[in-house]
């Protein structure tokens, strides 16, 4: 996983609650056996009509948001299936940060494993940024080390568990870390079998 300390980018307002992983990456695209190349299928049925033409009214298809890399969304982002293809598609499309009032548990974990920062922020603040981003270009900077999101006028604090923050900052390989405890795992296995 690539380390991430700070990220600055254009905010894309996706004003919907309960965005489920079936919308983020529809099932017909889960058959690939690689981790890459999923960005083209992100929000597929919201981005494209039945004939594969772009839906001009969908936020990601509007020219102002083409370079967007910070996604603003409503409550319970990423609910539904455990498919890690959801963060893979967001990352591959270019999103490094998702800001929402709440996240589904499994998605939150999956995002962290892929170097995406899930920023949990109170609903009023998210809503304010959404309105702003709908009307003008909004650039947000996420400083993970100091746990703040900055716009032109303010720094807003956010919480993220320390353990996850460290892993993101250092781009650590979880499995490598765990295997440092291999003697304990082995001891546990012997104790259970005894």
């Amino acid at each position, binding site marked *: 996983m690539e380390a991430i300390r700070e990220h600055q980018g254009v905010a894309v307002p996706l004003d*919907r*609650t*309960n965005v*489920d992983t*079936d*919308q983020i990456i*529809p*099932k*017909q695209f*889960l*058959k*690939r*056996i*690689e*981790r890459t190349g999923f960005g083209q299928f992100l929000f597929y*049925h919201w981005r494209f009509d*039945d004939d594969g033409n772009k839906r001009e009214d969908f936020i990601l298809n509007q020219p102002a948001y083409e370079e967007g890399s910070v996604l603003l969304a409503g*409550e*319970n982002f990423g*609910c*539904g*299936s*455990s*498919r*890690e293809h959801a*963060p893979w598609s967001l990352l591959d499309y270019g999103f490094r940060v998702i800001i929402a009032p*709440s996240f*589904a*548990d*499994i998605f939150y*974990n*999956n995002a962290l*494993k*892929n170097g995406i920062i899930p920023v949990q922020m109170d609903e009023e603040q998210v809503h304010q940024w959404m309105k702003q981003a709908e009307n003008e270009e909004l650039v947000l900077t996420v400083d993970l080390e100091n746990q703040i999101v900055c716009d032109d006028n303010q720094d807003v604090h956010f919480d993220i*568990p*320390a*353990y996850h923050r460290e892993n993101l900052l250092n781009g650590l390989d*979880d*499995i490598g870390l*765990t*295997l440092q*405890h*291999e003697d*304990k*795992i082995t001891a*546990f*296995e012997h104790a*259970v079998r005894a």
Partner: protein
Amino acid sequence: MGKPETLVEKIWKQHVVHHEPEKPDLMYIDLHLVHEVTSPQAFEGLRLNNRKVRRPDLTFATMDHNVPTKNRDVIQDQISKKQMDALRKNCKDFGVTLADMYHPDQGIVHVIGPQLGLTQPGKTIVCGDSHTSTHGAFGALAFGIGTSEVEHVLATQTLWQKPPKTLNVHVEGDLGTGVTAKDLILAIISKFGVRFGTGYVMEYTGEAIRNLSMEGRMTVCNMSIEAGARAGLISPDETTVEFLRGKPNVPQGEAFDEKAREWLALATDEGAEYDETVMIKAEEIEPQVSWGTNPGMCVPVSGSTPDVHESDDVARALEYMGLDENQPIQSINIDHVFIGSCTNSRITDLRKAAKIVEGHQVSDHVRAIVVPGSFGTKEQAEKEGLDAIFKSAGFEWREAGCSMCLAMNDDVVPPGGRCASTSNRNFEGRQGNGARTHLVSPEMAAAAAIEGHFVDVRQFAANVYS
């Protein structure tokens, strides 16, 4: 006597490998279930790092999401085939047992785990699938994980986890005649919303839960994730023990009775405290039908769709679903019926649906399919003649798999099609691009298949319930 403990606390204590303050615990995983869709990248990760599967003996794989449910001799979909071939190769290379598409143990991973007795009280169980919560019905701590965590468990047989907060979902009283476990869980999600369980492990308690069969308990726990909870479980009791007695992977004879005593001791102690408790009265629950695009958007079958002005979400959902506001549920015509999925494809589900269907014909504008949850379930149903009942009524009788629940194989609802489905998710496009899903119990789905629209199964099949 120590402090009274919940089932979750007891399981947790037994599985901590390593603990440090301010950090998640390193938890041991007793059973890792694997399927073809969320595992290929994990096995590839092992290869790239020269790692092995630490405990192939605690790992069990099957193929369920992609498999065709008819004409299995030739797999038409080449990309699906590639994914299934990858699982075959991965299991062979890494020494993992696989219930292949043609194997008698094949089926939906959450149906075969319990059937084979792999699922047991007190175990920690994971799978790269959010409906892993199903196994909580046995008093196991079972939850879905992403592919990175699948790789982590394959390599280390552990996961880093924070001790979860506990939420007691207490169901007072008992369910009325003709009201099922599916109606109960839909009513719970409808009452408390699709995110009330986020951050919690839910334990279901109360008389109605105690009176459910193991299959009913699996239906309830299966949909915990639709309420936001990664895991939902039920304390083991005699019903749990009797279900497992004689199953292939449990101890046999006296050793079983000894094991059963250990299992029963895991039940939540009298007086144990939960972080939160919610209550619902079972008597007030009617058969449920979902009208919208998440599982919380449900009403009783006697009800109507909501007012369009309630919220933007309601307006958007009604539009997607092609429904009017305040439209009576029983006026909604359907053209597809799907009886199956890890929520409702077990033998008791099929028996109950068959009872409703017997002596009737599927409405001529409805295409109805029954997809048993496993090869074993299908065999049992055929032994009991259930297949004949379904087929003579006009249902298609298929091979086991996830099928039309998520339409990764050929079992797809066409754009604009409307399906009464016993599955767990009514998200936009879930059963096919543009497809409209209504979640119901197997009995309600069976009655809808015959009438061509939703009806109250308690009236439709009054003779069955008398």
